[in-house]
């Protein structure tokens, strides 16, 4: 696979990769902090567990949103051009995957705003 094609695949799957990283960090950090009894620990008045979840969610969401919007812009600019079917397909798939990933990343971060830490 050429370097460009590898990059295209990575961009297409970017949202899922961000989601996987967010999932791993949230579960790992939350389990560790809760297991050590830091459920009520705060940093500048914000619960550490919630802060980690919110920060991780933002860090996963922002790059995914940028990739999503970039792909959308690139796909629109393709219209009228003589792009290959494979390129158009990968862009469509990338838009879909990254768009759904944005929603899933939000779903995964939502409990931090509703549930108490380590509940």
């Amino acid at each position: 696979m050429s370097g460009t094609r590898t990059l295209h695949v990575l961009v297409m799957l970017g949202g899922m990769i961000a989601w996987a990283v967010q999932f791993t960090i949230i579960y790992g950090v939350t389990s560790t902090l809760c297991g050590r009894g830091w459920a009520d620990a705060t940093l500048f008045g914000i619960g550490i567990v919630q802060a980690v979840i919110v920060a991780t969610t933002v860090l996963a969401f922002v790059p995914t949103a940028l990739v999503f919007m970039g792909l959308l812009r690139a796909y629109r600019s393709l219209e009228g051009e003589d792009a290959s079917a494979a390129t158009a397909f990968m862009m469509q798939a990338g838009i879909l995957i990254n768009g759904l990933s944005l929603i899933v990343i939000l779903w995964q971060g939502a409990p931090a705003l509703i549930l108490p830490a380590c509940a």
Partner: protein
Amino acid sequence: MDSVARRAAGLLWALPVAGCGGVQSALDPAGGDATGIYRLTIVMTAGATLIFIVVTALLLYAIFAPPERRAWLGSRRTIVYGGLAFPVVTLSLLLPYGLLVMRDTDVPRPGALRIEVIGEQYWWRVRYPAEDGQAEFSTANELVVPIGRPITVSVTAADVIHSFWIPNFGGKIDMIPGRINRFNFTAERPGIYRGVCAEFCGDQHARMAFDVVALEPAAFASWRSTQAQPAPEPAIPFLARGGELFRAGGCGSCHVVRGTEANGRFGPDLTHVGSRRTIGAGQFPNNIGTLAGWVANVQHIKPGARMPSYGSFTGEDLRALAGYLESLK
């Protein structure tokens, strides 16, 4: 024959409905938390059933409808709205709803009545710690609670893992030796409910139940006050003889009867055993007959229980002993 078959089919259909109410049913909630979980269950079940029916109908349509009529199923619009937008919207509504139910369930509340329950093979030790000048006391196989007041039950186990579950009040929590877990609920309806062990704990796991009695606050205060008292003196010679048999038979080495020399801690506290609704951890109604049967033949009724059968009593002695136990109100 046909009518018999029809009746049998009707009864078969009625069977699932029997689980929708009663003293041991998650579908008949008697507390706020249980009601929240019940509503969530109904919404999820109804929604899932509806979606299943629609998807199945569409599937059948896709298989059997003429090609020109089913073509719209493969259109981009159908896929985007039915395959993407609908699941995203549905799950985006269900997720916060489920999280809000979780947030409001099993929450410790100030002023809660504390009760400690210890699971043992195959019964429940229930302890009411001292509170507001009221003395601590223990009972067994019966959880009595006031309605309207939050309850915090601290659970653990003395031997193997058990699980504490009162379906009508929601929640289910493991009882693990060496660890204390907590379960919070509020009874909103007076009545009698049934709790069970929900984790296989040995041969008699299925016979490890308990009664939950939800009382009006005044009735609960009266019950609590009575339970904290020592056992009443036998009122008549027949019962006194039963008490003497209890002492001579060595029952006091395993059981405590407060106010007497019986101070065993191994088995259930019998100070007010006569006031309980059932014996044998929810197995029989509590009366002289079942008490006598239990004492004489416990290993036949509940093989593996820690109490040996006392089959050596004469019939008259057994009646006196059971009468004494039944008089401990």
